[in-house]
């Protein structure tokens, strides 16, 4: 293929060659190229085919709005659907063209992505002439300035016109000078390759920076998501050139006029040598001039009767002419043209290898609109423009319709300095000149099948006609009926074209029958400039609704695509979620613990010795606790210190049982309920002094209980003197459990009388251990066995673990985990809040009426007088003993009455419905009773004790006997050893 790169010109580094591969061919480009510019320079006119119709396509744009030229980059992570027009050329890029749709790489993306959170006084989005000018002015005021530009170069539209004079020097020199000024300023941060994709309340901007590919420091992320909290936002986001709708407007060789100019000016690539420029406005004339200046043969077809600007020399200009069709086998070889008013019955043909199209300009209002900034249709600019900036934002440059560089500079400077724009509203339209209101050029064959509106989605004018024929009137409905604007470019190409086309379709004679309130209905009079979304009525007597009356589709983040992996940032793998570790965690790892997650805590689940499976380990640990001595880390239990003259009163109101008269030096188990009487949390509370307590909570409930206490204290009982502080992490707790635990504790705490008489159940003592470590030792049990809990400062947690291990070594002390703890407590029917309860269970349901005081007021008490709490049919905690003593019922199994169970084995679904009388909440194998057992909540369960029922799971129906909830040591003979 012929090289289309000129010998001189452009902003590329011709001395730095970059090799890249497209498909199976290796090409060369230059530093500063995009993949698209390098491809075009190599004469590649055809890129991937279109998504559904498989039509040949070519590069159409020079930016993020590209609908055709997508590549997949191969490598460690195959990344799909990257617009070639924005992808910076890098060494050894391996790419393939994609046919309008990507393929997800199934392998893990092991590249790094991270986030950054910064605050800035002024953020300027877009570094074209307006943005650069704004940045310069803002920096001069001394505040913190952040300039964000999605391209890898500063300059915006000036990049395509490097020779244009700006403040007395060529544009590219001006850009470099401003860049140098900004980089030298200590208060300015420039973020290139950074696309602001979301704009949220309180001027919160979110942007994606593409980092590696041009930077390769170890530990540097490939992409970075920036979170910016901004004092004042300046949107200098520019505008998008529109295409025009005519037959074959998607053929390779059809390109936006501004793109053809940019490929020439920025990249030194002359895309075509025989050029037809098809325009509705003056902006294409400088393009024609630039192309002609480097030797191209240029013909301008202007749909208007005349131009508003000087005509370039050496260019053939034909007014009142349009392109009705492109010609060519694959790429454009010519166009068929006709007069715009349809008077030329025989279309003419013109040969060309590039058709540069300009259908007018659409301000890039996405970020403005994401903040619900209003838009209006400007009839003179023929585009949606912002009516006014949103609070603490300013707009500058082409996003407002300011099309001339000097205007952009002065408007940007004003925005940067927080001053009113000197550009007069009318001036914008005057300077832009007239744009023909041309939304559809009928084809020579009478159909609209190749009149593309959204090339990426392969949607044509015919699809829009079909949508209108099906009754769609709203732009939002047409979008969804057709899929226009749902592609990767999110309507940057097709959005306004669709709206314009709709105005034409809805003004057809047969639209007179459109129901009231719908676009297209005839009304008497209307405004010239319709505000968006105002009822969608036609705005003038000609029955033609203006685009403003139709409104736009909704602009949403992200403005440009963002990978989920970038949003995840570093919260992946080991860093995904914090693992909370106790002081003796390392020791438990050394002992072979398997851990389970309890909230964010890592708790030892069981300690498998060589060759043991979990069941064997748990059985051994259970036996050790019941028959000998065992120890576990109980540090994760929530702990809250409560102090105040009214602390006892407060606890008395929070717990269902009495706390007022708890003696100093003693502990008491308590249950707290919500006002509805349902169990909320439980735990043991120590009384350290008259006015001082330490409450323990469930592991998972610690934070919520502290909030609960604060809420009642602050909002309901502010008169009580009571204070709370979490001490969960201050203390580490090791439980020493089993008939021989007393010997271990005696060795650890020689100063302590640990005898049955000297240290009674539910007492606690402050002492100093043999090691010299201060400790608080409590006699309490969660297994029914004789047990002690030793609390020391977290600093000494590991030391205490070691000391307990050593003190118990000669007895064969056994570490145990949460699974064994669960078995032991279940044998004693000690409930676990959140496992055996689910927010619908009262203490009475758990068989714990003894913990509910009848003498005092407490949170939840009144609910126990409600009929629903006293009626029969409440689910009560019982045990289930499967008749098959080796069968462990799955937790969650349904319990049904014996009579309800189907007879014999099922070969299909059971007769439905079968009334359920309960469900299994906990289920284990018990060493103590030598069989499996379960806890279950069963309707009127206590009345059913001794009866048989059926547990159902996985299509099985197995007989069980309902028993008292406590299956072991009902008399409680073991707790004193």
């Amino acid at each position: 293929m012929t090289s289309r790169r000129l010998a001189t010109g452009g902003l590329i580094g011709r001395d730095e060659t970059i090799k890249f591969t497209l498909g199976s061919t290796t090409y060369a480009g230059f530093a500063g190229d995009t993949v698209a510019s390098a491809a075009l320079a190599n004469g590649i006119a055809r890129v991937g085919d279109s998504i559904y119709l498989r039509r040949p396509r070519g590069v159409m744009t020079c930016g993020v709005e590209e609908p055709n030229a997508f590549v997949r980059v191969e490598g460690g992570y195959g990344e799909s659907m990257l617009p070639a027009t924005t992808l910076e050329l890098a060494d050894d890029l391996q790419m393939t063209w994609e046919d309008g749709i990507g393929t997800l790489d199934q392998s893990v993306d092991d590249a790094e992505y991270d986030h950054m959170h910064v605050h800035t006084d002024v953020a300027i989005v877009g570094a074209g002439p307006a943005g650069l000018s704004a940045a310069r002015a803002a920096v001069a005021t001394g505040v913190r300035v952040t300039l964000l530009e999605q391209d890898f170069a500063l300059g915006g539209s000036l990049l395509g016109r490097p020779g244009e004079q700006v403040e007395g020097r060529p544009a590219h020199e001006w850009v470099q000078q401003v860049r140098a000024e900004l980089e030298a300023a200590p208060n300015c941060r420039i973020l290139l390759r950074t696309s602001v994709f979301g704009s949220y309340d309180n001027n919160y901007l979110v942007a994606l920076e593409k980092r590696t590919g041009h930077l390769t420091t170890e530990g540097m992320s490939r992409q970075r998501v920036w979170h910016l909290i901004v004092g004042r936002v300046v949107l200098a986001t520019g505008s998008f050139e529109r295409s025009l709708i005519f037959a074959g407007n998607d053929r390779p060789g059809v390109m936006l006029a501004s793109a053809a100019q940019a490929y020439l000016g920025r990249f030194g690539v002359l895309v075509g040598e025989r050029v037809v420029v098809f325009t509705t406005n003056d902006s294409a004339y400088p393009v024609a001039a630039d192309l002609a200046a480097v030797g191209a043969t240029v013909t301008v077809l202007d749909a208007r009767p005349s131009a508003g600007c000087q005509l370039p020399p050496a260019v053939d200009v034909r007014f009142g002419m349009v392109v009705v069709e492109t010609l060519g086998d694959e790429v454009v070889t010519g166009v068929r043209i006709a007069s715009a008013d349809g008077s030329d019955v025989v279309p003419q043909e013109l040969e060309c290898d590039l058709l540069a199209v300009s259908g007018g300009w659409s301000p890039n209002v996405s970020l403005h609109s994401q903040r619900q900034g209003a838009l209006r249709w400007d009839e003179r600019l023929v585009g949606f423009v912002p009516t006014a900036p949103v609070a603490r934002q300013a707009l500058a440059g082409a996003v407002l319709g300011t099309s001339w560089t000097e205007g952009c500079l002065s408007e940007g400077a004003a925005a940067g300095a927080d001053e009113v724009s000197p550009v007069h509203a009318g001036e914008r339209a005057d300077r832009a000149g007239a744009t023909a209101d041309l939304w559809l050029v009928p084809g020579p064959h009478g159909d609209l099948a190749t009149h593309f509106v959204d090339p990426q989605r392969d949607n044509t004018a015919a699809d829009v006609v079909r949508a209108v024929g099906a009754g769609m009137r709203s732009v939002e409905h047409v979008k969804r009926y057709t899929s226009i604007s749902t592609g990767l470019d999110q309507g940057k190409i097709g959005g306004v074209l669709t709206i314009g086309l709709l105005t034409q379709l809805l003004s057809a004679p047969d639209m007179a029958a459109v129901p009231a309130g719908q676009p297209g209905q005839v009304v008497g009079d209307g405004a010239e400039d319709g505000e968006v979304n105002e009822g969608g009525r036609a705005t003038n007597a000609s029955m033609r609704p203006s685009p403003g009356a139709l409104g736009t589709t909704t602009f949403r983040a992200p403005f440009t695509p963002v990978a989920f992996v970038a949003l995840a940032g570093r919260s992946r793998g080991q860093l995904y979620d914090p693992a909370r570790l106790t002081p003796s965690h390392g020791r438990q790892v050394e002992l072979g613990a398997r851990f389970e997650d309890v909230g964010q805590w890592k708790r030892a689940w069981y300690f498998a010795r060589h060759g043991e499976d979990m069941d064997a380990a748990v059985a051994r640990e259970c036996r050790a606790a019941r028959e000998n001595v065992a120890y576990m880390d109980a540090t994760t239990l929530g702990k809250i210190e409560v102090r105040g003259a009214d602390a006892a009163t407060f606890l008395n109101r929070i717990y269902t049982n009495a706390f007022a008269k708890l003696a100093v030096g003693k502990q008491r188990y308590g249950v707290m309920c919500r006002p509805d009487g349902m169990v909320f949390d439980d735990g043991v509370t120590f009384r350290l002094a008259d006015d001082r307590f330490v409450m323990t909570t469930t592991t998972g409930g610690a934070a919520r209980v502290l909030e609960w206490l604060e809420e009642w204290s602050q909002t309901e009982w502010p008169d009580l003197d009571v204070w709370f502080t979490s001490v969960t992490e201050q203390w580490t707790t090791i439980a020493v459990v089993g008939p021989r635990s007393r010997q271990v504790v005696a060795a650890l705490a020689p100063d302590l009388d640990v005898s049955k008489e000297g240290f009674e159940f539910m007492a606690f003592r402050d002492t100093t251990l043999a090691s010299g470590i201060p400790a608080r030792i409590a006699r309490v049990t969660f297994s029914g066995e004789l047990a002690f809990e030793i609390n020391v400062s977290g600093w000494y947690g590991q030391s205490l673990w070691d000391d307990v291990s050593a003190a118990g070594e000669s007895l064969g002390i056994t570490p145990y985990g949460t699974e064994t703890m669960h078995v032991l407590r279940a044998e004693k029917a000690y409930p676990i809040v959140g496992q055996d309860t689910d927010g619908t269970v009262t203490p009475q349901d758990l068989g714990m009426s003894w913990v509910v005081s009848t003498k005092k007021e407490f949170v939840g008490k009144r609910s126990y007088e409600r009929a629903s709490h006293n009626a029969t049919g409440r689910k009560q905690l019982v045990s289930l003993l499967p008749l098959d003593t080796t069968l462990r019922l799955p937790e969650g199994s349904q319990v049904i009455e014996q009579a309800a169970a189907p007879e014999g084995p099922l070969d299909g679904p059971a007769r439905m419905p079968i009334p359920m009388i309960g469900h299994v909440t906990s289920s284990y194998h018990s060493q103590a009773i030598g069989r499996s057992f379960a806890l279950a909540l069963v309707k009127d369960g206590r009345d059913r004790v001794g009866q048989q029922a059926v547990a159902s799971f996985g299509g099985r129906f197995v007989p069980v006997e309902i028993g008292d909830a406590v299956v072991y040591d009902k008399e409680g003979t073991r707790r004193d050893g």
Partner: protein
Amino acid sequence: MVDRSSVLERRRSPLHALTEELEHGSGAGVQLHEVPFLAQIGLRVRPGSPSAAALEAALAGPLPAGVGQVTALPAGRSTLWLGPDEYLVLAPDERDGGLDPAALTAELVTALGELPGQVVDLSANRTTLELSGPHAQDVLDKSCRLDLDPQAFPVGHAVATLLESVGVIVWRTDVGTWRVMPRASFAVHVARWLLDGMREYR
């Protein structure tokens, strides 16, 4: 009676196993190490109350008056503002001339006497990471949403905030030096999270 220094020998800070990891992760651009065993005493009193006055007298300095404020006290102590009626006193490690946290707590408990409020030893509740170097703020900016620039977050400012998803106290003790104080159980995660963010600046 066991001698005191052998008791102190038995202490293990939450990051004792990461000492080398922290050292290897540090470089010219940014450094991270643990400052273990600071005494930390939690106070809860209403500002301006007799209770506050009693504690201020015992501490020989006022309680900080609002969010972000830190009061520097004699003997290398500081008081951080954590909430409208919640403060944290920090004092040097016993090994560095500080008091046994239990003794310091007892002192303040005695000062408060019967007055409303609370004094609690929280020395093992959090540990302290010190992050310093020219890129320390960049590392924090990766996971802290607050404005950490000096005009908004001057030296001597401390707040309770989130680092990524973990609650920490962030305290700027010098232009390029930050203390990050997670609860003990989160310390390993926070340290590894910071180390991860430090790699590009090492």
